């Protein structure tokens, strides 16, 4: 079955739903509209999975749009599509949609209209981020997620919601504004080089363009900083615990499940292929920060008295693995990073849902207020234990697949420093057991310390409906991860090839910045030593003569029209 412009429908259906909720009357109608819209979106997105061609996973599929957004004077288009890198993240986003609505069903009692319409707008923004193949469009979607989230935290959050919301927005904005500057500059120089002087934001054209070495470094830093804040990487992570603790459960689920992935996705989608040399130069730095994040996040997590904060810091630790996998530049580690993004989305979302359910029952997040509740809420405990095990990377559950591939791949990186970093990162599997089992032990086991914990309602059907899909996927992706891995592999493999090719060709384009570095002949210049050193960090790189050809590779992208 072919649905025309399926992807655009998936992206914008929630927005339409938002309009409907605004028009609707009555709390029940609002919730139902939101749920139906989210569910319909998810069901439609399943056709993306079904219709996706695995062999062509490296190329753009379900392409939709292609029309100019602003004017013909600049090449800024509405252009969306999915490839192997975005497919799973799109599905993760659409899956979490209905789950978030259900989890908010009784939790949100005030301003329901505002809450659900913001949720739906947010859904459009998030889906768009993973599908946009025009950097300006990407930026628009990226920013579009910011505003609804700001209100979700600021209006429906906890006691210090204003502080947390403002911190979240300012921190993310600071990063993304710098990225905007980089986008504008990049579009300008790329436009001159490959688009006949017309500014271009077209992803394919930008990929064609080899950014001069000297400019790569700072453009990379501007892009990477925006994403590093979003991930968040150590030391830019402190907005996260505040935002998580203050956000309502639904907000936390979206934040951990999808928003953080926008950071790691951005690194894979833009930083690596646009600035391959600079990325290689900074690989050890990012690897180190990632490993620090893994261990630091785990230790700080262990020290939290607040269950939600503990889970929040666990994200810092877990996403450290993803970043390590990205910057190790091996196919195995990158594939691990891709699947780990989804894994983290599933397991951390489930953790936040379950902690949120406890909060709804007892109105406290302090672990000391619980203890021994396994007896009163056996079902909740069962799902919690399973989720914790997935999060701690137990083989047979999804987390292990990602962690193992990331670590095994990074260990095989040709940079010796990466092997050392990987060995250190592996201690993270011990620490994950330490802080996660500590939480289980304190909250669920031991004697019942408070009378009010003795009798608590166990999960009801609505709550089961939110957790069961996640847990089923955790098991499924742990036992048969191959269908998921297979869908991204052609794309990640192609990405790494592209990086190799571009690194070889990088100094070919004259740089407008420093006349000294302008190559005047096809022979390798003394300055050429710089990119060559950088290339050595990439496995599989074969030294090639520097070529003065602009279009030295063929893009495997379908024509959008």
């Amino acid at each position: 079955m072919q649905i025309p412009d399926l992807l655009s429908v998936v992206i914008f259906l929630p927005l339409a739903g938002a309009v409907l909720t605004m028009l609707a009357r009555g709390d029940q109608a609002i919730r139902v509209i939101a749920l139906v819209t989210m569910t319909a979106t998810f069901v439609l997105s399943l056709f993306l999975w079904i219709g996706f061609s695995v062999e062509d996973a490296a190329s753009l599929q379900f392409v939709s749009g292609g029309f100019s957004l602003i004017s013909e004077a600049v090449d800024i288009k509405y252009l969306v599509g999915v490839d192997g890198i975005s497919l799973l993240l799109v599905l993760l986003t659409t899956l979490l949609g209905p789950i978030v609505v259900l989890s908010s069903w009784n939790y949100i009692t005030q301003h329901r209209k505002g809450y659900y319409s913001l949720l739906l707008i947010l859904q459009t923004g998030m889906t768009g981020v993973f599908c946009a193949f025009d950097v300006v469009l990407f930026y628009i979607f990226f920013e579009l997620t910011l505003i609804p989230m700001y209100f979700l935290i600021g209006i429906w959050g906890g006691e210090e919601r204003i502080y947390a919301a403002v911190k979240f927005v300012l921190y993310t904005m600071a990063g993304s504004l710098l990225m905007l500057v980089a986008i504008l500059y990049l579009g300008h120089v790329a436009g001159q080089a490959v688009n006949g002087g017309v500014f271009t934001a077209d992803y394919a054209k930008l990929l064609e363009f080899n950014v001069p070495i000297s400019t790569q470094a700072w453009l990379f830093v501007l892009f990477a900083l925006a994403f590093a804040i979003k991930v968040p990487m150590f030391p830019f992570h402190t907005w996260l615990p505040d935002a998580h603790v203050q956000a309502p459960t639904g907000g936390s689920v979206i934040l951990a499940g999808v928003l953080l992935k926008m950071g790691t996705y951005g690194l894979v989608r833009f930083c690596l292929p646009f600035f391959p040399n600079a990325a290689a130069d900074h690989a050890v730095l990012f690897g180190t920060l990632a490993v620090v994040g893994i261990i630091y996040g785990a230790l700080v997590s262990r020290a939290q008295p607040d269950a939600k904060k503990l889970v929040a810091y666990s994200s810092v630790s877990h996403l450290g693995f993803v970043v390590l996998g990205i910057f190790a530049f091996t196919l195995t580690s990158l594939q691990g990073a891709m699947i780990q993004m989804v894994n983290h989305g599933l397991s951390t979302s489930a953790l936040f849902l379950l902690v949120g359910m406890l909060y709804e029952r007892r109105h406290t997040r302090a672990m000391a207020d619980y203890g021994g509740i396994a007896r009163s809420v056996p079902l909740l405990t069962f799902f919690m234990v399973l989720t914790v095990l997935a999060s701690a990377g137990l083989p047979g559950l999804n987390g292990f697949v990602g962690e193992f591939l990331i670590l095994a791949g990074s260990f095989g990186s040709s940079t010796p420093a990466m092997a050392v970093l990987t060995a250190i990162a592996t201690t993270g599997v011990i620490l994950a057991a330490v802080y996660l089992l500590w939480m289980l032990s304190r909250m669920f086991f031991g004697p019942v310390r408070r009378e009010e914990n003795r009798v608590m309602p166990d999960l009801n059907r609505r709550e089961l409906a939110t957790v069961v899909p996640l847990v089923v996927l955790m098991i499924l992706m742990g036992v048969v991860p191959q269908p998921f891995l297979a869908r991204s592999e052609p794309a990640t493999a192609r990405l790494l090839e592209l990086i190799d090719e571009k690194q070889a060709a990088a100094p070919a384009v004259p740089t407008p910045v420093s006349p000294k570095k302008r190559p005047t002949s096809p022979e390798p210049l003394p300055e050429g030593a710089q990119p060559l050193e950088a290339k050595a960090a990439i496995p599989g790189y074969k030294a090639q003569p520097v070529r003065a050809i602009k279009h030295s590779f063929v893009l495997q992208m379908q024509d959008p029209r």
Partner: protein
Amino acid sequence: MDTDLLLLLIVLLPAAGAVLNGLLPLMWPQLRRSEAAIGAVGTACVAVPFVLALVLFFQGFAEPYVGSFYTWMGVGDFSVSVAYRVDHLSLIMALVVTGVGALIHLYSIGYMHGDRSFWKFFAYLNLFIFMMLNLVLADNLLLMFLGWEGVGLCSYLLIGFWYEDFKNSQAATKAFVVNRIGDFAFLLAMFILVREVGSLDFAEVFAAAGEMTAGTLNAVVFLLFIGATGKSAQIPLFVWLPDAMAGPTPVSALIHAATMVTSGLYLLARMSSVVLMAPTVMGLIAVTGALTALVAATIAIAQTDIKRVLAYSTVSQLGFMFMASGVGAFFVAIFHVVTHAFFKACLFLGSGSVIHGMHHVEHDLRRAGYKDPFDPQDMRTMGGLGRFMPRTRWTYLAATLAISGIPLTAGFFSKDEILFKAFEFGYDGHLFAWFVWSVGIGTALLTAFYMMRSYMLTFEGSHRWPMAQRVHPHESPWTITAPLVVLAALSLVGGFIGLPKLAEKAGLANWIHGYLVGHGTHHGPVVEAAATAHVSVGIEVVLIVLGSLIAIGGVWWAWRFYALHELTGDERIRLRFGGLYRWWQRSYYWDEFYDKVAVRPVVGGAENAFAPFDNRVVDGLVNAVARTAQQISRMARHLQTGVVQAYALAIVLGVVVVIALMVR
């Protein structure tokens, strides 16, 4: 029947049992009370795989068979399959796991009767068998690691089974975390192999091992060995096992004695061809085993909790198995795994039967108005139980004689073979083997002594519990004693599968050697160190006689000593050894040491350094930036006064400055 199908059934039946017993009662609480059905399903899901494994056993499989089912995960050229390997090594392990496992399931029906989480217990136990079968049948290291961590999980769940006591939950967490330290090393070993070999399949790893550098080989074997010390409770990672006794006793018998803790030995045997290429690490393995055996045996002498005696005894016996692996006699390690599974499971189940009886004593005491604390596991309040629990007593005695190495019992053959192999290795010019051998001889004596001590204090002598004239224990029901009888019988005769070399003169071959290592041109799955020197028959006879005398001497000594002194015997030993005895009682302060150097620095560091650092410094900086920005904007706000004259003045000043700069 098709081998693939048989394999699938063997592996998946326990999983099905776990799902049935776990999920159905979880969803429908009214099912939780049907103990008979739950117990029957649980036991059948292990007994049937045992029968199917027997079918495979009789089919032979001198040549390994690999049943590959699907690709678990793969990237590029690297791929790992869910594939199971049938060969003599995996078959023997699968038989022990399902055979002993089925007996312990049967036992648990009686032992766990009336527990409110009866259903959960059987679900966990079935899950354990599933994971253990994955561990021993896996055809690659990664699938083996799934079983490896999976059994660790079940161990965690079962140690913390009675989670209302916070101590149990803590013991469970400790076991899991310490095991994970070992798993960390296992992971690193796999990373090296992925990089160097590009595969984790056993066949490919073995084939590639010859081309690896000595450094790589040593690293891999060393890391796998560290992994093994975690799961098999050796120095430095043995500390979790004694605490693991917090779990129900069938768990101690199945997981913490017969099966899971032997997986480290299985790993080394499976990788024997690779381990043999790293002789330096082998020395380390043997010496570690010897030291662990000795250390644990001395601790066992000073324990008063019957399960803790058995726990340290397990650690000590595992040490013996590591000695065997370290001197290149992997098949002997597996031989001891098998015999140990018989007698140690019998001992643990026997202690469970005793505890069961003492629980009744406690129950009766409470009814009679007794208020003081009463520990049903404390041997000091037992004594003379043999009169009330005859079947438990005789089976316990049989297993005690077996573990002590009394001639012709199972332990005699396997332990003697370990010591003989160590001796032979030393004879072959490996100096460390002499050390290992002498420690082994000394530990064998201690073993006979402390095991007989536990028997004497429990089953012989006077009744030392309160109101002994009014209350006394009763023999346990048949579901408990029947497995005891079977295991006791195996403890007595199970050793004949591994006759000493001497028997070859009489035309009797060592079956397990032929089965695992092969004979003539046929090679089995386990490789052994090639001996160059030949130990003469005379020396072998001397060694056997020496081993027998030590076992008989130790048993006789303990029997005399504790028959005479009963509980005051311990006091006499304490006076004799003074400060050393305290170290034994407190397990050489090992836990305290780790607490000081590892646990408190990490936890304390997290709470007192990292968390405040994050709060004050990392976040403090962020907030400081924000505050600065706010202040700057506050200052900038003063510029926008709204007074037109001020703007005009500013413009004029600006123009002046610009002109000044231009003319400069």
